[in-house]
């Protein structure tokens, strides 16, 4: 059985989560290379369609990472992002994909360790869920347990 | 006299009038109507027959009224604007009158949301005030609402409801004034538990002289238990049950609560008899009709005058 290397897209806000990822790097913390980071000015800039398109084009999981609650550089962008993530999870549930492939996290710029932990745990979760069924048609889950 | 209504005659003679109500059965069982109405013989001047009360389907008020009329009793046809447009209302009114039903009560009706057909459409072609106006026109001008002459107009004694306890309180007298303007003859109020507030409302009614233009009958409901008191306090919109009343019910042992409820009810009637402008009592003993004779007797309202 071939190994399943999930593709995970992480939308990280410039002020907190992206800096935290950077810090994880400087701290030489290990986290899975599967996580592809896209820097956004604010997690509130991430629209539902961005998450949907990532999945439609084959991502196996999507992280939206913003500042801690109350600490958003743009006041409440992270709250808006959390609501949008909820609505995307609902849509994914409705189309039979399950909402668990998308998750919102919050962290401060100094939380390099948290970023590494989130990236590792989320990657493990997606490995358990298996490949995005959109890619493989009806044979969803064929790669499960490979990683 | 505008009509042949017994209720009108009682009121005109200056007596305190007494009415009660009979909810028709949820099925085609005429004997149920007869049993309930028979309990009220000799102790009331009119029997309100509810119209799909609480928005639940029941035998039609009109059919149950005819059964009661044939027993030699005096039914009061309740009609809600929720279920019928103005054509159906007018045809039912002349139909009722053709069977000798000469007293009616115009209501908007509970919203279907509260009944067992929440999916039903609301009609509300006209409201209760417009209904009063329509019935008065049918009686006094002999005309349908559309303007055509009625061949044999229904001589209805026209009632309506008033809730002194709903919000905004400052509109409660004003809305009664609108019903008076529309031509209502008598009013039956919402159940009175907060007598102080009712008296305050009556003050406002008297200030405007409305009590001289319309006969106000105070609504009375006996409570069976403290559970019922709490339910009415918390769950029924527009109902005002003061804490003292709930506490008084809670203060007696369970098996004596129904007797306490009757006592409160009789005391309320005694107190309201002294209120200027109260012309009678409307006793709504919900599924407890057998207690009405006792309440009427203990309140000193028996025997009923013959007019």
């Amino acid at each position, binding site marked *: 059985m071939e190994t399943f290397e999930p593709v995970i897209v992480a939308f990280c806000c410039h002020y907190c989560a992206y800096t935290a990822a950077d810090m994880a790097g400087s701290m030489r913390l290990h986290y899975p290379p599967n996580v592809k980071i896209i820097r956004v000015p604010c997690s509130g800039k991430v629209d539902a369609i961005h998450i949907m*398109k990532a999945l439609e084009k084959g991502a196996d999981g999507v992280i939206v990472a913003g500042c801690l609650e109350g600490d958003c550089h743009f006041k409440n962008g992270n709250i808006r992002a959390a609501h949008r993530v909820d609505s995307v999870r609902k849509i994914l549930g409705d189309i039979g994909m399950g909402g668990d492939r998308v998750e919102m996290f919050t962290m401060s710029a100094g939380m390099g360790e948290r970023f590494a932990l989130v990236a590792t745990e989320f990657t493990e979760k997606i490995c358990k869920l298996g490949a995005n069924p959109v890619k493989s048609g009806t044979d969803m889950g064929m790669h499960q347990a490979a990683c | 006299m505008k009509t042949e209504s017994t209720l009108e005659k009682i009121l005109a003679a200056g007596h305190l009038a007494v009415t009660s109500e009979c909810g028709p059965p949820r099925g085609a069982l005429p004997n149920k109507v007869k049993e309930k109405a028979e309990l009220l013989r000799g102790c009331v001047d009119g029997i309100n027959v509810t119209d799909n009360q609480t928005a639940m389907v029941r035998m039609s008020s009109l059919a149950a009224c005819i059964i009661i009329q044939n027993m030699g009793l005096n039914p009061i046809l309740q009609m809600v604007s929720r279920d019928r447009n103005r054509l159906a209302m007018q045809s039912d009114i002349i139909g009722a009158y053709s069977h000798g039903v000469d007293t009616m009560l115009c209501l908007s009706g509970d919203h279907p949301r509260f009944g067992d057909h929440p999916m039903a459409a609301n009609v509300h072609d006209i409201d209760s005030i417009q209904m009063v106006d329509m019935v008065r026109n049918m009686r006094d001008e002999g005309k349908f609402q559309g303007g055509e002459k009625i061949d044999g107009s229904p001589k209805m004694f026209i009632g309506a409801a008033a809730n002194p306890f709903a919000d905004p309180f400052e509109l409660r007298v004003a809305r009664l004034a609108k019903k008076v303007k529309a031509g209502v003859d008598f009013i039956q109020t919402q159940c009175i538990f907060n007598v102080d507030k009712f008296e305050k409302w009556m003050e406002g009614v008297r200030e405007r002289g409305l009590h001289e233009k319309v006969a106000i009958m105070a609504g009375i409901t006996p409570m069976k238990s403290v559970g019922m008191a709490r339910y009415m306090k918390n769950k029924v919109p527009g109902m005002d049950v003061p804490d003292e009343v709930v506490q008084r019910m809670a203060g007696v042992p369970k098996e004596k609560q129904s007797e306490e409820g009757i006592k409160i009810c009789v005391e309320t009637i005694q107190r309201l008899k002294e209120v200027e402008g109260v012309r009678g009592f409307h006793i709504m003993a919900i599924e407890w009709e057998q207690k009405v004779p006792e309440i009427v007797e203990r309140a000193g309202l028996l025997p009923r005058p013959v007019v």
Partner: protein
Amino acid sequence: MITAERKPMEEIIGSVSPYRRILLVGCNECVTVCAAGGRKEVGLLASALKMHFAKEGNPVEIEEVTLERQCDPEYVEELLPRMDQADAVLSMACGCGAQEVARRYKEKPVFPAVNTRFMGASERQGVWAERCAGCGNCVLGITAGVCPIARCSKQLLNGPCGGSTSGKCEVDPDIDCAWQLIWDRLKALGMQERYEDNIPAKDWRTGRGGGPRRIVREDLAS
């Protein structure tokens, strides 16, 4: 505006599942403002449907178009070049838009992707509430600018009923009692005496009582 809400995904999927080439048509007017069927929602629905059918091993092609106004024949005409490639149309406009597409393209099945709800106003971000019932004979001038037909649960023209409690309707504590609002406005305007004018029974012919309605403007009609 006319408000709408997207239909449940299951229902939309059920309606288009026999078709492989779907033209998904949004509208730039009301449904864009109430975030039900504008360009953005068209994109989301297209993505969701593509993923659903791909996952089932039964991929669909979805063409996305958002018209300036789906209830106007000029704009609906713009769909013509794309119709050949479509097996069915899924409309995200209100019922007026969906019907205009169906009228113009008689050979194509048209399915609604939204439920058209009511004529309303935006109360705050993400909240819309009913304001007008389109009765065809506006009473706002005598009801202090608050419509009892659209906003009273019993459409009482002489309210409030006995179910008004602390400014709220007995039907639902989230509904303001329209007659409380009317009274408050009358007081603020110093027009309390208006309250006791009995409003007569309404002539519903200008509303739905007169059957489906049309407006013909002789000065504009061609």
